[in-house]
């Protein structure tokens, strides 16, 4: 090919709750399950610690997709945190869609500490989805682009 | 004046001295090892830490110091905390000088000076004290009344003890707010001490310190017979541009960064009481 196009590798931010999903990611690692290295995990004490601003700021700083992982509903370490997170994220994602921003760039998954395989599969699937969407253009901050 | 007023120069912090628990003095030179610019006593400079912010600080060193500039800075906000955390060799940005400075070439000539300072208020007046000491033939005697919360909070204590107190041309009166072990000097607030010392009313007064000290000291001076036209102070307001344009240091028709920070009290009477 005369002009080789560099393959697009999306930057993914994954907010993972300390008690389930972060442990799930650990398990995926110890079981040697692979998922793309472009997923950057940010550990949070609970999925409900994630303010809508965190999601937006991740996009501002160059993320192409943002995923939030927490304990399964009913299993929250703090009893009810993920129920609140669920409502918040539903409304936020709906609003992003309303503004015409690709809804597939955001996702919530419930991953328990025992679900290493699910964690890896989720990340692989999410990365594939975002790769297909291409670079985040609609929620980018031009100043943060190199 | 610098034609690119808003673009700073790089300054290198060569030495940092811990003065008191919350005040440090920073020596700054340019990249070439020389002073970044010349200034007049009482003028200020904009120091900044890129990414943190910019702040206006009075230049503590005297213009007669030809090697470097000094800034005595108290830790109280974002930029100052960052400055306090840094190590020698760190580069910062600097622009200036800003403001009018003290009238050392006009009103102060030949006069006996009385400097009243409280706490970090010594920072801007140290410049004028040392300038007048270095040019003592042009000025009369210098009396300094300086107070702070405690002995440990006296800024530039070493210089005061070693140099100022040994200067035949100077009288230094120190005071601290509360009794303290190892302190045999005066104890009490500055305004009261001023009244006790009963300085000669022919002196020209330079005052800088917390607003409450200024308020009561001024009242005390008036009781002693001083006139407002004899008393100078230097102001602090929020500043962003330093060149009289951004609007926030505006008091009446004056811009503190450009028309100030040094004002005579009779000039301040003509301004709205908004400082």
């Amino acid at each position, binding site marked *: 090919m005369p002009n080789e196009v560099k393959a697009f590798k999306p930057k993914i931010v994954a907010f993972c709750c300390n008690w389930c999903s972060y442990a799930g990611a650990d398990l995926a690692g110890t079981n040697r399950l692979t998922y793309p290295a472009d997923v950057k995990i940010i550990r949070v004490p609970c999925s409900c610690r994630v303010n*809508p601003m965190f999601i937006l700021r991740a996009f501002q700083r160059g993320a192409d997709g943002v995923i939030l992982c927490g304990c399964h509903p009913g299993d929250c370490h703090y009893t009810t945190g993920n129920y609140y997170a669920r409502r918040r994220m539903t409304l936020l994602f709906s609003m992003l*869609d309303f503004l015409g921003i690709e*809804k597939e760039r955001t996702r919530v998954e419930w991953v328990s500490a025992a679900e290493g395989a699910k964690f890896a599969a989720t990340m692989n699937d999410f990365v594939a989805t975002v790769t297909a969407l291409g670079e985040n253009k609609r929620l980018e901050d031009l100043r943060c682009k190199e | 004046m610098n034609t690119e007023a808003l673009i700073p120069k790089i300054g290198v912090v060569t030495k940092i001295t811990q003065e008191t628990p919350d005040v440090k003095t920073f020596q700054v030179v340019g990249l070439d090892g020389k002073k970044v610019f010349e200034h007049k006593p009482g003028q200020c400079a904009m120091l900044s830490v890129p990414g943190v912010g910019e702040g206006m600080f009075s230049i503590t060193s005297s213009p007669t110091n030809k090697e470097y500039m000094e800034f005595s800075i108290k830790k109280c906000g974002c930029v100052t905390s960052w400055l306090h955390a840094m190590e020698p060799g760190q580069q910062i940005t600097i622009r200036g000088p800003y403001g009018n400075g003290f009238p050392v070439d006009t009103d102060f000539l030949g006069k006996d000076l009385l400097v009243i300072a409280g706490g970090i208020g010594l920072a801007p007046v140290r410049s004028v004290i040392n300038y007048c000491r270095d040019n003592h033939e042009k000025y009369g005697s210098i009396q300094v009344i300086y107070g702070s919360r405690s002995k440990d909070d006296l800024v530039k204590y070493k210089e005061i003890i070693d140099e100022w107190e040994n200067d035949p041309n100077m009288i230094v009166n120190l005071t601290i707010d509360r009794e303290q072990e190892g302190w045999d000097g005066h104890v009490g607030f500055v305004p009261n001490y001023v009244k006790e010392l009963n300085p000669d009313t022919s002196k020209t007064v330079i005052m800088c310190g917390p607003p409450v000290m200024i308020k009561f000291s001024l009242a005390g001076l008036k009781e002693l017979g001083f006139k407002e036209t004899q008393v100078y102070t230097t102001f602090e307001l929020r500043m962003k541009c330093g060149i009289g344009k951004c609007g926030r240091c505006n008091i009446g028709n004056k811009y503190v960064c450009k028309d100030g920070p040094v004002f005579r009290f009779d000039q301040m009477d003509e301004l709205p009481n908004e400082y």
Partner: protein
Amino acid sequence: MQGMMINRAKELLRDGTVNRVLGWQAGEFVYDITPAVFETEEELDEGFVYNGFCGNNLSKYLVKETLKEGKILVFLKPCDTYSFNQLLTEHRIDREKVYVVGIPCEGKTSGEMLKSKGISGITGISEDGDNFIVDTVYGQTTIAKADALEERCKTCKSKKHVAYDELIGEDGEVLDSHRFDMVAKLEAMTPDERFAFWRGQLSKCIRCNACRNVCPACTCEQCVFDNPKSGIAQKAAADSFEENMFHIIRAFHVAGRCTDCGECSRVCPQNIPLHLLNRKFIKDIDELYGDYQAGAEVGTRAPLTNYTQDDVEPSIVYHREGK
């Protein structure tokens, strides 16, 4: 109506029920009306007005006013009473220090609305049945009141007062407002069309913060956008991202608490239809978590501080085409 209100206010001042009256003050051109506090009967006679241009929702001023000494009389239109209840729910107003007089509202207009109809040089406005007769330096024009109404009044949700100590006039009913029609229309567009629509609107924003400062739900002592420690304090949107972020977060912070009073859109100097963002949240909440009207009652739990175990999953967003 105005006369009745002034008389009642005077009575209440005289008998000591209240020591201040919060109402509207006349301006230069009939339509430029300013909220004001009146302390004496003379002041009421001089400046108090109530007419079709008194759009300001007075309930937010009560946050500040109830911190002062004495009881204040406030005139609230039906939609203002929802904001009032919401503020009570959030403990922002001392109910003991307010005397609420509910007043009817036939919908409000504004100088800006008249001007958007091409009317300029206004020297006087009078009401004639269903019409406004507008005198201008260029001659007289007549405009149907219905056409001049603010967007929020064209889709008025309720003529019913949900809070009052006394009413002047008859109370109305909750209306079938069709207020979500425009939201539904946007939802039916393609994402590209929506994106283009909102970029066009939000890029007009000058970040004056009027929408935030006027909002009766925005009563934080320090807004996240003013807090230097929040990392997103901004005075101006230096990038399109910041325009989007400000408006998403502004709407999100009042989601579930917004009573849809429409002040945000009324005050926007750039005429950005900000209420559509709020209504999107309200519509989603209604559809996903059951109907909820913020401020309808005091003490209800807002949808975002509530949950049920079988709430829908966020993935519903992927499957709701045209919602």
